[in-house]
């Protein structure tokens, strides 16, 4: 412990007496580390944003009744033709209902599953928006507004009004911003919905939403589940879709298979629906790690160079230290500790610089039609990045210092003293 203090004292004086070189070496580390922090924070922010754009509002499992022809035509059940090659022409989809049979018990069943964060019903209806003489094609979805907000961040896309307004108003409607613009409607106005049977239901606009996808904003609107059922003139057990959010997205695939088999429904998992997103995320992560490692490698070479030079300059000092009773290992520790001190100081400065620049980026305005709830560039502050960065700084400087230090350890003092 005592000898450790002396070694640190010597390192400190060496570093301070060469403050220029020391600062340059430390700055190398600082830039490497701050670049890592900035890159990781920014990349993760963007990843989160892009994921959020699609993944967060996409259910992990989407359950519905698909319209499709029977997979097995009657002839397949006829034993005499089991060996034959049967060709059936003009296959038509089976007469089936759009609603999910026994939807409410199924929702209750799913909600009891510990892997499920929430399963919520939706009712989709087609209709027309009528305002004055204008008629527009529309998709009206009945939702449980609060649950949607909780599970799928629905409230992020509401630009005017809020989810509670919809929840509290049975005759309320959340209109897509495209629809509102086309029909020059604003919050508080009335709009009439015509269903497929031609019946007209008047609703009050309680809010506007913007999903960022024009196609949706031009046709979609949201109402309460009950309102949607009323538009369709259906009973309260009429549910067309169930959206499931899981705690762990990894469970989506097996769970959707299980549901599809068990209840003879169509269940689409998020991975099948959005396979490209995961690839994008991992590639972006890979790039940021590669760039940061390159930067730190460069910083490491800088430290290696400077320590190497220092050792040539300090040959005399090394000889004196060895002659007066410092062992080779002590000398080695002196130089390693110098490298590690450079790493720690440079690393901490790098963390601070990285944090400050992240803050700066975080405050740069970034407004885009596609993502209405974003006003500045997204940056993630994850303490794990800071820990990794610091470890990286220490390890790389240690390695950069180790080789020159080993050289210093092996210097023969006799040669230096005689060489004079």
């Amino acid at each position, binding site marked *: 412990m*005592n*000898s450790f203090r*002396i070694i640190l004292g*010597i390192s400190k*004086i*060496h570093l301070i*007496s060469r403050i220029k070189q020391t600062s340059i070496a430390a700055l190398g580390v600082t830039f490497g580390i701050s670049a890592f922090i900035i890159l990781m924070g920014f990349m993760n922010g963007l990843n989160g944003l892009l994921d959020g754009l699609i993944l967060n509002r996409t259910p992990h499992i989407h359950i519905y009744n698909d319209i499709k022809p029977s997979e097995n035509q009657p002839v397949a059940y006829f034993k005499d033709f089991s060996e034959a090659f049967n060709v059936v022409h003009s296959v038509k989809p089976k007469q089936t209902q759009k609603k999910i049979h026994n939807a409410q018990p199924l929702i209750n069943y799913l909600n009891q599953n510990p892997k499920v964060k929430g399963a919520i019903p939706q009712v989709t209806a087609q209709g027309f928006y009528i305002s004055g003489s204008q008629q527009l094609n529309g998709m009206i979805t009945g939702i449980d507004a609060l649950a949607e907000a909780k599970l799928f961040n629905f409230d992020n896309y509401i630009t005017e009004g809020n989810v509670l307004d919809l929840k509290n108003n049975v005759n309320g409607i959340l209109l897509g911003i495209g629809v509102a613009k086309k029909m020059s409607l604003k919050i508080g106005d009335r709009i009439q919905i015509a269903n497929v049977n031609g019946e007209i239901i008047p609703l009050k606009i309680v809010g506007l939403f913007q999903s960022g996808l024009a196609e949706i904003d031009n046709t979609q609107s949201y109402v309460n589940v009950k309102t949607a059922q009323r538009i369709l003139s259906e009973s309260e057990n009429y549910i067309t879709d169930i959206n499931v959010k899981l705690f762990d997205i990894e469970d989506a695939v097996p769970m959707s298979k299980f549901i599809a088999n068990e209840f003879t429904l169509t269940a689409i998992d998020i991975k099948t629906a959005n396979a490209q997103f995961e690839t994008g995320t991992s590639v972006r992560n890979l790039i940021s790690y590669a760039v940061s490692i390159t930067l730190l490698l460069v910083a490491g070479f800088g430290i290696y160079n400077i320590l190497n030079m220092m050792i040539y300059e300090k040959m*005399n*000092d090394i*000889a*004196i*230290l*060895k*002659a*007066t*009773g*410092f*062992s*080779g*290992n*002590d000398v080695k520790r002196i130089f390693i500790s110098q490298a590690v001190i450079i790493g720690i100081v440079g690393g901490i400065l790098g963390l601070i610089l990285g944090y400050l620049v992240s803050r700066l980026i975080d405050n740069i305005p970034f407004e885009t039609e596609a993502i209405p709830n974003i006003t500045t560039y997204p940056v993630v502050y994850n303490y794990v990045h800071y820990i990794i960065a610091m470890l990286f700084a220490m390890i790389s400087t240690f390695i950069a210092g180790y080789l020159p230090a080993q050289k210093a350890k092996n210097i*023969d*003092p*006799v040669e230096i*003293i*005689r060489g*004079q």
Partner: protein
Amino acid sequence: MNTILEAKNINKYFRDPVLFHALKNISFNITKGEFVSIMGKSGCGKSTLLYILSTMDTDYDGELYIDGELTSGKTNDELAFIRNKHIGFVFQFHYLLPEFTVLENVMLPAKKLGEKSLEEIEHDAIEKLKLLHIDDQALKLASRISGGQKQRVSIARSLINSPSIIMGDEPTGNLDSKNAENVFNIFQELSHQQNLSLLIVTHDEEFANKTDRIIMMGDGHII
């Protein structure tokens, strides 16, 4: 008379560039309080011998005892400890750490030894500097004092751990006659008053003649 340093049949070879027998069967010993000088022509092996005796050079045959302890074959860490505790060094060139103050330079070997508290070490270091009449320079950087002063500081440093023996490689070789005289007087004082053993390699005949014993070397032999 107790023996401080004993060399038995020391042989040293240089293998590079050609095999060269530098030291041939060197045997002698130094007793406590003895002031010994080694003389000889350049290249006769006197410095080589000193570095072996100082334990810094371990590549030799034979046996070396310091304070009755066999040092041959010990590990580098053990030898570093022996140098630290039992041997004080004074070189031809001043060899102080230039970025440290005079006081820190003197204290460093004692800090390494770690037998005393920091206050005691500082007190001892100032005592040693006083002994050599340079305590007024204690807080200056080692690179800011004159050559004669540097040599006195390095003597003070060699004394800090109360060694059994002081070894010097031409400690007056780089000094003017006044400073050389001064250094000799200090050595003699240490030898007589503190009963310290000294082993000094020198070219200076005048210097050597005043010591207790002269070991003359020639061609790797003691003559």
